[in-house]
Structure formats: structure tokens, C-alpha cells
């Protein structure tokens, strides 16, 4: 009897529920439960974030620091590789010059500094007597003449540039086949002197070493004539030369080691003992 009554109640409740007659009652009952669960869930998530987020920030910061360090390392590598690329390009050009001029023997050297006195236009290279360099050896680049070695120590050498005020080079003007003297100056300009007045020289004419005097090999390119200075009352005319070598940006040079410079000092009148 009880079972039948319970079954009737259950069936009645089901019918009421399926018919939607219990919804208001269910809403009244479940809404507070949902609110309570939401409150609990929000508080739990807040507590969870409080406990977990600081750890994430720390790990992110660590990761960020790692990436920044890696970035700095890569940037340093890029700079180093660019530097190596420039050096390789210079060495490639120097090697090309060596192949094209096999009559000479060369030693490549890096420029490590300039003279500490502003009046002297000299540079320092990282090779010296230990590598077989001697005083007077000519120094060139793939473009042309740089100067000659003026002092040698075991591991380094001083090179007097042709732009040094104390430098003098016997040269040949290619087109007019005229010999002259090239001197340096305090301004860094390279000047041509002792050109006879009857010779016609023009801007753009190529200037080469003549080999006279025995201090430099012949036919090394020096530069081009830029401005001609000709005064009717002067004994000689002169010119300003645009050197093919940029002396302010020298990074590597070649020393010609099989050239033996001649010492003609005993032959100069007045300097013999």
C-alpha cells in the first residue's frame, strides 16, 4: 500500500516536472545554491591565482632575462661577424693584389695604431723583425703605395706614410713620362714637385713610382693629379695629388719583403765622411 502511494507521488512529481509546474519551486531552491557555489568558485580562483601567478611572473622574468641575454649575445655575434666580414673583404682584396703581382713577396699586417705625435704621419703595424720585416721595406695595399718601414721592433713596425712631411718619393707621370718628386705635408696632402715648366701635365694623370733612388720598386700606383700649380716665374711646376689609398682608414697592408732598398747616402755630396 505504501509502495503504491510512493509510486503515485513519484509519478505525480515527474508529471508535474515534465509539465513545467515545478520550475518556480526549483528556481527558488537552486538559485541560492548557485550563488553560493559561484562565491566559493570565485574565492577559490582568487586564492589559486594568488598562489600561482607570482610564480609565473618570476618564471617569465627569468625567461625574459634569458632571452635578453641571448639577444645581447646574438647582437655581439652580429657585430663580430660584420667585423670579420670586413676583414675578410680587405684580405680578399689584398690576396687578389698578391696574385696579380707575383713578382713580389708579401707579408700581410694589420694597422694597430698611429704615431702619438700629431706632427708625424706614421702608422704602426703588428709585424716586426721576428716576421722578417726590415727597415726600408715598401708597404702597399691592393690600391697602391702606402709608404715604407721606418723603424722595426721585434713584434711591430712603424711605417712612414707618403703623406708624412718628411717623405720624398721619386715618381713618374704616366702620360707625359716625366719624372718628379712627391712629398707629404702637414695637412696630409700629397704634393708633386720638381716638374719641369715645359712639360704639360693635366688633372687626372696617373702618378707611379719611378724606382729611381732605389727606395721603392717601380710602377707602384700612387694617385692622380688633382690640381696643377704653374707660376711663370718658378723654376718648376707642382701639383696636388689625390692618393688612391685613404690613409685615415687603413686597416691592413702588405709589406714587400723581397725588395732591397738601396742606401745612397754615401753617394750624396756633403754627407760622405
Amino acid at each position, binding site marked *: 500500500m505504501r509502495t503504491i502511494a510512493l509510486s503515485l507521488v513519484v509519478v505525480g512529481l515527474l508529471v508535474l516536472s515534465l509539465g513545467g509546474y515545478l520550475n518556480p519551486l526549483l528556481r527558488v531552491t537552486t538559485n541560492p545554491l548557485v550563488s553560493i557555489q559561484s562565491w566559493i568558485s570565485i574565492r577559490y580562483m582568487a586564492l589559486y591565482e594568488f598562489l600561482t601567478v607570482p610564480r609565473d611572473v618570476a618564471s617569465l622574468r627569468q625567461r625574459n632575462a634569458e632571452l635578453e641575454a641571448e639577444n645581447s649575445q646574438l647582437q655581439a655575434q652580429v657585430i663580430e661577424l660584420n667585423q670579420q666580414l670586413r676583414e675578410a673583404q680587405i684580405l680578399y682584396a689584398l690576396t687578389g693584389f698578391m696574385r696579380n703581382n707575383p713578382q713580389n713577396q708579401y707579408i700581410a699586417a694589420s694597422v*694597430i*695604431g*698611429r*704615431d*702619438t*705625435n*700629431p*706632427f*708625424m704621419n*706614421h702608422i*704602426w703595424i703588428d709585424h716586426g723583425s721576428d716576421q722578417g720585416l726590415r727597415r726600408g721595406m715598401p708597404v702597399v695595399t691592393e690600391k697602391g703605395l702606402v709608404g715604407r718601414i*721606418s*723603424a722595426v721592433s721585434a713584434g711591430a713596425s*712603424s711605417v*712612414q706614410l707618403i703623406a708624412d*712631411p*718628411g717623405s720624398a718619393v721619386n715618381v713618374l707621370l704616366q702620360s707625359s713620362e716625366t719624372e718628379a718628386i712627391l712629398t707629404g*705635408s*702637414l*695637412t*696630409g696632402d700629397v704634393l708633386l714637385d720638381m716638374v719641369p715648366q715645359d712639360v704639360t701635365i693635366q688633372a687626372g694623370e696617373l702618378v707611379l713610382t719611378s724606382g729611381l733612388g732605389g727606395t721603392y720598386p717601380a710602377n707602384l700606383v700612387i694617385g692622380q693629379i688633382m690640381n696643377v700649380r704653374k707660376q711663370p716665374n718658378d723654376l718648376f711646376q707642382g701639383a696636388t695629388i689625390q692618393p688612391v689609398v685613404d690613409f*685615415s682608414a687603413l686597416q691592413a697592408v702588405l709589406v714587400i719583403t723581397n725588395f732591397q732598398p738601396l742606401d745612397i747616402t754615401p753617394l750624396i755630396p756633403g754627407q760622405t765622411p
Partner: protein
Amino acid sequence: MISTLISIPLFALLVMVQSAIVSRLPLLRGFPDLILLTMIAWALHERVTTSWQWGILGGIIAGYMSAIPIVVPIAGYLGAIAMARVFQHRIWKTPLLAMFLTTFLATLFYHGLTIGALQFAGTRFSIEQAVNLITLPSILLNLALALPVYGLVKELADWLYPVKIEL
């Protein structure tokens, strides 16, 4: 003794910086002389007793790294020290003024010696051009660097020659 010995690595370092960096950054054709400035600042310190030794060692080291005859830097630096010692006694209350005045006069003196030596050796150039292109820009750069160099050298001198307090 230590203060004399310490000048050798210091000048070696200064010469390397001068040759590798400073001389590649010219104003016209002139550039500052770090050794000269260091020497002047050292000699202007009242408790320093080794300034003449510094002058000789600095001159030798600078002469080794230059194509100029070695007697020129030695004489030039000793002259600069002599000027610094004179000004240090005369205007001891204003060491910065002494630093600037000595820098100006010592640069002129050193460049004058260099010009004289080059002319004597047969190198021909216009003295007016040398003054305009090298000496005047060098004086300007030396004066610009005089203050920081003085500060650094004073720190070194105070470290090597601490003030003695009697209790």
C-alpha cells in the same frame, strides 16, 4: 718607489690608448696628449715627490712609440713638469687654474720643440700651417680634457700619498 713604478704600466696604457684611439680622432690635424696631461696633473699635486721620474719615464715610453727623436718628448715633458711645479708653488690655492695654465703653456712648449726638431732635421713645412692645423686644435682638446684628467690623477695621487693626520 711604488709611485714611480706605477707610472710604467700607466704610461704604457696611455700610449696604447693614444696610439690606437685618440690619434685616430683628430680635430683638423691635432689631437690631445694624454701623457702630457697626466704628467701635468701629477706634478701639480702638492704631496707628489716623483714628478721628475715620471717625466723621464713618460718621455722614454712616448718616444718609443713615435718617430720623433726621443729627446723631444723627454725634454718636452720635463719642461711641462717644471712649469707645473712653478705654478703649483705660485698659485697653490687654485690648482685647476694652474692645470689649465700649465696645459696651455706646456702644449705650446712641446709643439715648439717638435717643430724645432723637425726643422732642424730638414723637414720643410710652414710653421703657420703647423700652428693653425695642429697646435691650436691640440691646445683646445688638451684644455677640454684637462679637468677630467686632473680629477682622475688627483684620486691616484691621494691614494698613493694619503694625508698623514697627527693625533
